[in-house]
């Protein structure tokens, strides 16, 4: 499934909006709390000022007397009238003076109670007893009564009738005893309105700021980030698809941030990839050319070896067959056979040290020289001595050739041969192949001064000669074992009656079976000459 690319701008804007919204909410909530707190304190202070004023109106020494006798007097009425005026003029809800039962702080006996008519409540008459004091006020009442000071906590309540705050003070008589509590409750009328105004302000400022910031930020983002990145992305995508025409300039390279570096890197990278591709194309073309030339070389080389069989259909005296399987494209082995004159057939088997093109070139020289210098009646030792001398001239690579050449006289069966460091041939006499121990001279192209001597043996009608290169005996299997002379001798004798081409096929099949999957290291070259009858 293709992953859908999310657009960078959308993600960035969304995250910025989210951050600003969260910040605004935090600011609004803290501001709201702070604002409430300050207002509450302000109202409470006012309530306390009213309570202090009311306290000066009272005559505390007489309060206990009123409660004990259950009767009030004229002074009481005068004070109540003044408190009634104060509750209205100070815009408070209630001003009351009450005796608190100090056993549970829950029972309140009202002495004075002035009620602002605007609240719609009516006053508790003198001696009214309330037993349902809110338990959360108990600690504060206890504190006021025992220390004679203010309430420690602010008393606030938020009810259906609105928000209000209460101030509580101890009323002390002339002896300093706490005889009652004076309470003033004030409505926090402005609080709601002010608070909602505040929230609206904060919200609208936040929204305006968000929009303004976003606009500026988006403009900046588009100019400095989105457009350059889009340009780079587009170019990278284009180049990745066609790999051609690397651009030489991008506007984004002028970007002062990392994007500029990225753009420069893209330019540099495209140029280098282009150069690399061109180089690779050239190298590949060159490699293909070399490969094609090697193919031609292989073809030329193999066509240099006589490969039309039967080679001498007009000569019933001999049957000859040869084959070469190079290990690399071009090999260093070669064989040859040709008529020296009407009655003499020459065979050559050779192996150039080393592999590949140098060996193949050296092989061509060697093969040509040997054939050119073999002439009717010429001693083969003399031929190799001369060929060796010529090969040593300008042999900078210090390659050498092991070579065997033999010339069969078809009229007499005399077989002259010369051996320059090459393997012993196998000769079939009376239907049995045996290795012929012949003297070996030094390899060709080794030392300029080497002199070669020819040898000679007699072949009868029905005899055959098998010659090969070390690729046969040194064919190696996966266990690093060599094919060896014994295996070769065995397979030759198993096929002793076979014609040359069938014999070579059988030997090759036996080698292949022995080697198995192991790679072929050396050229495998073989030649078999069967002397069928004397020439008459």
């Amino acid at each position: 499934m293709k992953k859908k690319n999310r657009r960078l701008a959308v993600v960035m804007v969304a995250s910025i909006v989210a951050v600003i919204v969260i910040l605004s909410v935090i600011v609004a909530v803290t501001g709201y709390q702070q604002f409430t707190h300050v207002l509450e304190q302000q109202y409470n202070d006012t309530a306390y000022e009213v309570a202090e004023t009311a306290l000066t109106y009272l005559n505390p020494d007489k309060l206990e007397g009123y409660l004990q006798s259950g009767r009030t007097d004229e002074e009481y009425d005068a004070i109540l009238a003044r408190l009634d005026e104060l509750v209205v003029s100070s815009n408070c809800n209630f001003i009351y003076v009450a005796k608190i039962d100090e056993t549970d702080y829950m029972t309140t006996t009202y002495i004075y109670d002035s009620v602002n008519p605007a609240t719609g409540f009516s006053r508790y008459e003198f001696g009214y007893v309330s037993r349902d004091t809110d338990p959360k006020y108990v600690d504060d009442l206890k504190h006021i009564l025992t220390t004679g000071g203010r309430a420690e906590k602010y008393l606030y309540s938020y009810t259906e009738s609105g928000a209000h705050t209460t101030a509580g003070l101890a009323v002390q008589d002339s002896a300093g005893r706490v005889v009652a509590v004076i309470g003033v409750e004030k409505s926090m009328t402005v609080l709601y309105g002010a608070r909602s105004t505040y929230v609206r302000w904060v919200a609208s400022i936040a929204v305006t700021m968000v929009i303004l910031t976003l606009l500026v930020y988006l403009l900046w983002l588009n100019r400095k980030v989105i457009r350059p990145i889009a340009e780079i992305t587009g170019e990278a995508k284009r180049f990745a698809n066609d790999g051609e025409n690397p651009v030489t300039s991008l506007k984004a390279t002028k970007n002062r941030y990392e994007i500029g570096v990225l753009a420069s890197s893209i330019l540099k990278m495209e140029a280098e990839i282009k150069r690399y591709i061109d180089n690779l194309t050239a190298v590949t073309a060159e490699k293909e050319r070399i490969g094609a030339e090697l193919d031609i070389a292989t073809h030329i080389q193999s066509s240099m070896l006589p490969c039309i069989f039967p080679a001498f259909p007009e000569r019933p005296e001999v049957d000859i067959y040869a084959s070469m399987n190079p290990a690399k494209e071009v090999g260093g082995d070669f064989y040859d056979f040709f008529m020296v004159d009407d009655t003499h057939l020459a065979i050559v088997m050779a192996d150039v040290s080393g592999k590949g093109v140098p060996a193949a070139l050296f092989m061509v020289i060697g093969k040509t020289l040997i054939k050119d210098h073999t002439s009717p009646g010429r001693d083969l030792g003399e031929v190799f001595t001369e060929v060796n001398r010529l090969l040593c001239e300008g042999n900078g690579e210090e390659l050498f050739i092991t070579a065997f050449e033999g010339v069969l006289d078809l009229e007499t069966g005399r077989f002259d041969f010369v051996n320059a460091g090459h393997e012993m041939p196998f000769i079939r006499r009376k239907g049995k192949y045996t290795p012929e121990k012949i003297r070996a001279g030094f390899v060709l192209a080794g030392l300029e001064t080497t002199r070669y001597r020819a040898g000679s043996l007699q072949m009868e009608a029905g005899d055959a000669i098998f010659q090969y290169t070390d690729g046969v005996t040194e064919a190696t299997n996966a266990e690093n074992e060599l094919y060896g002379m014994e295996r070769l001798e065995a397979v030759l004798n198993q096929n002793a009656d076979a014609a040359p081409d069938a014999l070579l096929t059988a030997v090759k099949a036996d080698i292949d079976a022995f080697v198995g999957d192991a790679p072929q290291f050396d050229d495998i070259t073989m030649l078999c000459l069967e002397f069928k009858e004397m020439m008459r």
Partner: protein
Amino acid sequence: MTITKNQNGSHLDMALEGRLDTATAPQLEAELKQSMDGVTELALDFAGLEYLSSAGLRVLLSAQKVMNRQGSMVIKNVNETIMEIFEVTGFADILTIA
């Protein structure tokens, strides 16, 4: 193939172990090229050598040619298999085998 070198002034001993063939001959050639300067006596120890191919023979021939000019080269502890290769190829005639 493992080559152990021991040089003492103009005397260089080299012991070869393993197979000296197309794949390893360049290694021996490089080693020889590097250390043959000024050597007058080169001794190659073939005690640990299992196999020798024509590519190896080529390196030996090059070394023999160099040593013919600047001193002498001797090959020691040649086993039967390798001796046969030297004889078949005629190298037995041009190398000093001790």
